[in-house]
């Protein structure tokens, strides 16, 4: 072990070893993946999966990225033998590679300080998302999520109230004559979040066996298994 060249070649070889395992080989297997068909349940016909996101949802992904939402929220559902995600109503089935095919950037996250969002679109509605962003404690008392007030603006009500204004409970309503309007960033983010749904059953991700537990969902409407 005395020569520089030997050291260099050895390092290159060890580096190439792990590079082949985790960059090249997955690329060979998954790099050419395309849309696929869902496994039909009952007499339903197979559907194309996943579907492309709307432009607004893409813009929302950028807001999600810029504000580092992935620091607290993952976007992947564990298999039933590895976690209680499915029983918590976070998803119908485990997440698989196919689910992320059309996302850019892919932000799976690595820590759950808030609930998993892989299927948030299945359990949320637009006004609910705005309320959570405006003040998370309106929906989940004692939530540790910060409020994202800077995604909203307060307007003086013009001739008529705006149809985009968010509906706040009385005690949080703005002073009379004013209304809270989500900025375009908040709208894009809501579009992105509503688009988060991994609801196609695939060959590699069939529906899990039905749980028989007293499951309590996170803090949202409990997800119902698809028909």
């Amino acid at each position, binding site marked *: 072990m005395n020569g520089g060249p030997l050291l260099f070649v050895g390092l290159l070889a060890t580096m190439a070893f*792990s590079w082949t395992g985790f960059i090249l080989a997955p690329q060979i297997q998954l790099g050419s993946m395309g849309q696929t068909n869902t496994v039909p349940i009952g007499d339903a016909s197979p559907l194309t999966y996943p579907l492309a996101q709307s432009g607004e949802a893409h813009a929302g992904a950028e807001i999600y990225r810029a504000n580092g939402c992935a620091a607290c929220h993952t976007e992947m559902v564990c298999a039933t033998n590895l976690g209680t995600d499915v029983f918590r109503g976070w998803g119908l089935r485990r997440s698989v590679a196919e689910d992320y095919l059309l996302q850019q950037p892919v932000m799976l996250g690595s820590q759950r300080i808030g609930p998993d969002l892989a299927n948030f679109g299945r359990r949320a509605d637009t006004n609910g998302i705005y309320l959570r962003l405006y003040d998370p404690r309106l929906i989940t008392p004692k939530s540790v999520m910060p409020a994202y007030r800077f995604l909203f603006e307060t307007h003086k009500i013009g001739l008529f109230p705006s149809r985009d204004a968010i509906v706040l409970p009385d005690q949080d309503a703005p002073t009379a004559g004013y209304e809270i309007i989500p900025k375009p960033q908040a709208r894009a983010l809501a579009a992105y979040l509503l688009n988060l749904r991994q609801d196609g059953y695939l060959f590699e991700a069939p529906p899990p066996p039905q749980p028989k537990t007293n499951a309590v969902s996170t803090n949202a409407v409990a997800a119902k298994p698809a028909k």
Partner: protein
Amino acid sequence: MMTLFGSALTWLLLASLLGLLNSLKFHAPGLLASQPYLSYGRVHAAQSASFLYGFAVPAAVGLGLWLLCRLGRTTLAGPTIVFVGAIVWNTAVTLGVAGILCGGSTGYEYFEMPAWCVPILFLAYLMIGLCGLFTFHQRQPERLYPSQWFVVGALFWFPWIFSTAALTLLCMPARGVLQATTAWWYARNFDTVFLGFAGLASAFYFIPKLLGRPLHSHYLAAFAFWTLALFGGFGGMPESAPLPLWIISLSLVGTVLTVVPILAIVLNFYETVRHHLNMLDADHVLRFTYVGLFFWLIASVQQIIGALPSVSGITDFTWFGAAQKELVHYGFFAMTLSGALYYIVPSLLKLPTSAWCPKLLRVHFWFMLLGVLISYLSLLVAGIGQGVLLANTGNSFIEVMLRTMMPLRMSTLGDLLVVVSIAVFLANFAGMVMQSCRQCWLARKEAL
């Protein structure tokens, strides 16, 4: 080289301040939330980027250059280029961190630096790294010492993983979930191989040198070096990642096999310091290095335990991982590097080692040790508690999170101690620089 170290320490202080800020947010989620620039997600990314690119890389490279000069009995090749490289690097990091706070993060953990900043960083690294290689090349022809392999390994490893991540995440983004595998692979390589190589290079140099004893076995060190290079970067995929199972299994095998280099390194150091392990009398450089190595051992073992399927089902995506990261970054790397700097800085400034203010030094050591311990243990408790409670579907998510708040708030105390210790270190460092300037000035006056 002093530029590298000085800027690295400033970044370390900034990173730990940002960490403290985010830790405080768990006491009051409304804290500074109305400022988009200081919201949790952005500060989290900025903290990570300023630690990794502001502190870790320059500190590791600075240590590497010094060791290559020392062990090769030569002088630094192209000091001007290194200086310019350091300035460019720091400018890029400053702009990048500011960019992240303005919402420019790439969204990949460990690779948060905005895309426009990445080529500048790479260029600056090349300027410094190539000088390192030339320094290595002009060494005296003697048998290579283990620290030299580790340094050269680290110097090569970083540009390889950095360019791979830049190409497959930013230039030609891989499709779908492959981005996540690349990001996880990059993070594992950064922590285990790059930081591991750099920190261990320091330990392999200072422990035998300051004890005045030869290293127990060069062969064992070589064995540890190659196995760490082979298995250290071979993993990082969470057990429940949405990937084909073979990738996850491969990652598990690689992670478990890191037990081989860990055992080899522990055995080697144990045999070297056996009968000479007196922590209280030990030299302060040694004390930092011992503690750093010990934390490295715990963090590496925790990484293996956390990868085992029976454990990862509970601990994945909880504070367990954050605790391990805290231990690698502050407990191992910052600790070992602090020790090394207590030796390197006086030798660079041509001052005696006694020129450090001993009081500040002691405050630094104990505050850092206590701070890292408190942070680590409370995050570990929070992580295990979160995992165990979540495994029961009867506990709602928010209940579980509220129950982890107590240990999380405890960890703020640890973060505060770390911030104080680093501020003290920086003050001590500044004191040394001033002494050196005064000496220069006196010498010049006498000459006149």
